[in-house]
């Protein structure tokens, strides 16, 4: 084979069989779908409200319980129908996306920062620091996260800050555990040891020789935790413990429709589908990122 190749011109690579090429293309598109859908949600959350020229929490009682696609009393069309107070569901879904994405991002940012700081320092320094951090994590793990969030959100007045704090209180643990275990293994690497021997300061060792290796997996985890935070926020709002009633949240909209499930299913179903689709797509995106960073590690 080799000699032939040297003498003759090498044969051009055989084109993939059309059916196989098509399958590969379909597989690629399917694999990219969750990321695209996730991206659409983010875009809708950021610029969607700019295109809606009415208040999502205001409505005419004449227009109550209209099914999706109905014409409103003012001549407009309610794409997703209206709820029991005549409020447009499309507006609520778009504004709800903004709430979810905003709270999810904030919770993940705070949790990731706290978790990374605690986990990396505990894992790198070991000893008493690690012991204390690990025990705190163990104790917090013993509480179901959502229960602790319900207690915190229930004790204080409803506000965005309280929701974010209530969800971040347990959310950072995942980041702390990940970064602690990675820092523990990284500190045993020879490049960290040689930096230590050279007298490089601890803070610099963490910033330069440890954190860059934790960043990728943390980003992957952040995606998964983002989905969890959105779900938890919706749960709190569903229970009436989340955002103030003047703001829009999918959880509140779903709760508002629960009495009309038999007659006006769309009130709960549409925001429910929006929520489920987002969580599923974020989950898939997180899995892909985890695999990607797992390969690179």
């Amino acid at each position, binding site marked *: 084979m080799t000699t032939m190749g040297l003498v003759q011109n090498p044969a051009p690579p055989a084109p993939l069989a059309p059916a196989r090429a098509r399958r590969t293309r379909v597989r690629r598109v399917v694999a990219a779908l969750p990321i695209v859908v996730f991206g659409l949600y983010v875009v809708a959350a950021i610029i969607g409200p700019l295109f809606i020229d009415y208040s999502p929490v205001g409505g005419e009682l004449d227009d109550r319980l209209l099914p999706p696609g109905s014409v409103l009393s003012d001549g407009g069309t309610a794409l997703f129908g209206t709820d029991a107070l005549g409020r447009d569901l499309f507006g609520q879904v778009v504004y709800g996306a903004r709430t979810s994405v905003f709270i999810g991002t904030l919770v993940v940012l705070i949790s990731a920062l706290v978790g990374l700081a605690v986990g990396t320092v505990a894992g790198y320094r070991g000893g008493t620091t690690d012991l204390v951090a690990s025990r705190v994590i163990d104790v917090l793990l013993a509480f179901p996260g959502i229960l602790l969030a319900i207690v915190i959100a229930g004790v204080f007045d409803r506000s965005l800050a309280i929701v974010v704090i209530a969800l971040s209180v347990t959310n950072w643990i995942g980041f702390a555990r990940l970064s602690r275990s990675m820092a523990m293994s990284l500190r045993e*690497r*020879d*490049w960290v*040891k*040689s*930096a*230590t*021997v*050279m*007298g*490089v*300061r601890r803070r*610099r060792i963490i910033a*330069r*020789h440890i954190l*860059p*290796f934790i960043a990728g997996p943390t980003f992957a985890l952040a995606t998964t935790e983002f989905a969890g935070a959105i779900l938890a926020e919706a749960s709190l709002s569903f229970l009436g413990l989340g955002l103030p009633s003047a703001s829009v949240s999918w959880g509140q909209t779903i709760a508002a429709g629960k009495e009309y499930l038999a007659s006006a299913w769309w009130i709960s179903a549409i925001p429910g589908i929006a929520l489920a689709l987002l969580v599923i797509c974020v989950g898939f995106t997180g899995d892909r990122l985890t695999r990607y960073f797992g390969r690179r590690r």
Partner: protein
Amino acid sequence: MTDAAGLRITDLTVTYPGPRAAGLVGRRTPITAVDAVSLDVAPDETVALVGESGSGKSTIARAVVGLVAPSAGSIEFDGASLLNLRPRDQWARRNIAMIFQDPRSALNPRLSAAASISEAWEAHPDVAPEGVRRDQRRRRAAVVDLLAQVGLDPDVAGKRPTALSGGQCQRVSIARALALSPRLLICDEAVSALDVSVQAQVLKLLVSVREARSLSMLFITHDLGVVRQVADRVAVMRHGELVESADVHTLFTAPQHDYTRELLSAAVDLDVRS
């Protein structure tokens, strides 16, 4: 040469917490990795520390550079203690550099060779060559100069360890170790992980660097062939204890301890077979 010059290790004992004696809550039985070892490395001298795996050679090196804390004994360099150093006294260790066994893992895979080398100057600006902290051109010139001293081309400076061979990585490690102009170089199995042909080159480089810079060297190895080429004096370790210490000629011709004789005959057997 004063009495206190060079490295002086006296009655060094290092213990690790061992497995628990009973179940989950039993007391841990400490494992003694190094047991009351005393060893000196005079200026310009190369001492080889030999022994089988687990004999405590590397633990001694780690204790000297501060990676493990000894449970007893003292370590001094030029008369100053290296134990329990406060952060501002860390300069005492600046005179000691270490080269690790695995050339690839000794360099951060995300940093270029130049970044790895110049990190030493950022940590110790007082001994860095003039202007390397601020002036990028000078830093590059200083890095290229160091790379040339270890036989590497200037283009290695911008490469990451993944783009370099094992031998090149070990040369970069040596360049990094030399960046702070140390006086004692500790080589922990520095050539064991390399190909035989590369081993000889790196060994030659270490010897020439030692001559050029009048370095003392603590050379940890299990390869007696290497010892013969580089060492002035040999210390033999077994089960954490120093069993024999003699100059290289005496040790190879008239070993005193049974274990040393065993080691030597094992090495001869291998030579004959190969």
